[in-house]
């Protein structure tokens, strides 16, 4: 129940920072059906038809945490340049989906191809193209901000200028550069991790609650960075409960419920301004999923 309250509540709170420019950009995209309730599934993922093929192609993928099938059948296709918002209640499998795409988890069943690499056989091949920001920041606490960003930049041979630009981008360049990470606040750490990600020049960004801990300016910096990266051809997957902000950013929204991403990126909500009715739908679908989970748990 907490998750339901939380997600809808945050959505309302964030409404004021909705970015109007993004609406117009998004609305260029074909508007697909908006689900009226949970079981309404739109048929067409609406591929933005690129010659290079999909960046991510999952077909009925199962991935486990221990013996628990955190992903119980994910089918999804993501093309280059898309910003996809993954939305779903806590425990739906969003984090697992992102980690799977990063090549960190084995594919138990199904087929998964990311950037042309089959995850069943070549998870290592995927990783260098991917930037993953998980719940944890992946920073070295004893090193300074600049050293951390330089480390992640060095993994792709980024130049000093690029690393400086990345730090500038996320607002950790001047005052914070020489501060050890352990002395930073949560938000500052998040910024540092994002700067490291920018320095990595990834072609596929996988972000798990990237807005968490960031202040208003940090969020604006992040959104601008993501838009710029997407415009430059990067593909971005964001899992977020900050619906307003993420929806304004996303070119597509994908629902994740009980470990499933259904039918090639279904439950597709596109572009338009997040109206009152839609929020109600979101909240109710989330609540429905929550109640189902509770129901199952009590049975188990």
């Amino acid at each position, binding site marked *: 129940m907490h998750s339901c309250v939380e997600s809808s509540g945050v959505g309302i709170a964030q409404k004021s920072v909705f970015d109007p420019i993004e609406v117009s950009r998004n609305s260029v995209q074909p508007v697909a059906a908006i689900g009226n309730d949970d079981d309404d599934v739109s048929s067409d993922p609406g591929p933005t038809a690129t010659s290079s093929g999909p960046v991510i192609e999952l077909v009925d993928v199962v991935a*486990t945490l221990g013996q628990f*099938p955190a992903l*119980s*059948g994910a089918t999804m296709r993501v093309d280059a340049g898309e910003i996809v918002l993954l939305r779903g209640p806590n425990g739906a499998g969003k984090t697992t989906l992102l980690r799977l795409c990063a090549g960190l988890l*084995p594919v138990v069943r199904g087929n998964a191809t990311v950037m042309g690499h089959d995850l069943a056989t070549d998870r290592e091949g995927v990783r260098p193209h991917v930037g993953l920001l998980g719940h944890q920041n992946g920073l070295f606490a004893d090193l300074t901000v600049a050293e951390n960003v330089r480390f992640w930049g060095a993994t792709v041979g980024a130049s000093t200028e690029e690393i400086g630009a990345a730090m500038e981008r996320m607002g950790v360049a001047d005052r914070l550069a020489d501060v050890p990470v352990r002395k930073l606040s949560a938000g500052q750490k998040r910024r540092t991790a994002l700067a490291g990600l920018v320095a990595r020049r990834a072609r596929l960004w996988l972000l798990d609650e990237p807005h968490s801990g960031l202040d208003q300016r940090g969020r604006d910096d992040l959104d601008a960075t993501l838009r710029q990266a997407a415009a430059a051809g990067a593909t971005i997957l964001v899992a977020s409960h900050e619906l307003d902000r993420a929806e304004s950013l996303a070119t597509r929204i994908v629902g994740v419920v009980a470990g*499933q991403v*259904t039918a090639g990126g279904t439950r597709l909500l596109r572009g338009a301004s997040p109206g009152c009715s839609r929020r109600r739908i979101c909240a109710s679908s989330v609540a429905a999923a929550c109640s189902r989970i509770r129901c199952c748990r009590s049975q188990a």
Partner: protein
Amino acid sequence: MTTLEPNRTATASEVVATRSTGTKATRAIGIAAVVAMTWLLLFALVFSPADVNQGDSVRLMYIHLPTIWVAYLSFIVSAIASGMYLFTKKHSLGWDRMAGASSEIGVIFVGLTLIVGMLWGRLTWGVFWQWDARLTTTALLFVTYIGYLAVRRLDGSHHQRAKRSAVIGLLGVLLLPLVHWSVRIWRSLHQEATILNTDLDAEIDGIMFFSILVGLVAFSLLYVWLMLHRTRVMAMEDLLDDRGLDLALAERRAEGGVR
């Protein structure tokens, strides 16, 4: 929730269908092992003479030697199976289960060797434990493979289990030469290995030697019998895990309200 019930019964019936790990072959080997063990008892306790110096306590040798032989064999088989898992393209879990089962048996038999050895030591040396090289390194072998078994029980997928334990299985087996030649390396008071030595007939009496051979055969048969059953049980455990995953998957899918 109704969708779950058929799955559950189906799984239960399949488990019932393959309830036994015994086959004709295992039964034959089992009977052969029992017969060989009876022979061993006869030879060890009745036919073979008491030792001039050690008296009847020498009869412990007929357990002591075969158990350490089986332990060596187990760890070597385990290492080979570990290598096969790691270095073959298929990464078959069958090899992993073979390594695991063999190590379990090895741990039991090293434990037996140590216990019997300590009793024997009490009778001949007057103390249970001597800090000599053979005993020390054998004890080391024992704890190393206990660590191996602990690693097998860590959380994770079957292949994770296989990878981790295979690495330890391959490194752990390097202790074997150290154990076997420890006496020579340390020049200590433990008697030289008798059975794997080249000049064995010169050292021990014919019927004693034959009794030891009977012991080796009996315990080797026991090892094979245990291996067959244990690997099959392990295969069923893995199967059960997979079934559990199927169930959990069905449950989670039902939870999502799709399919």
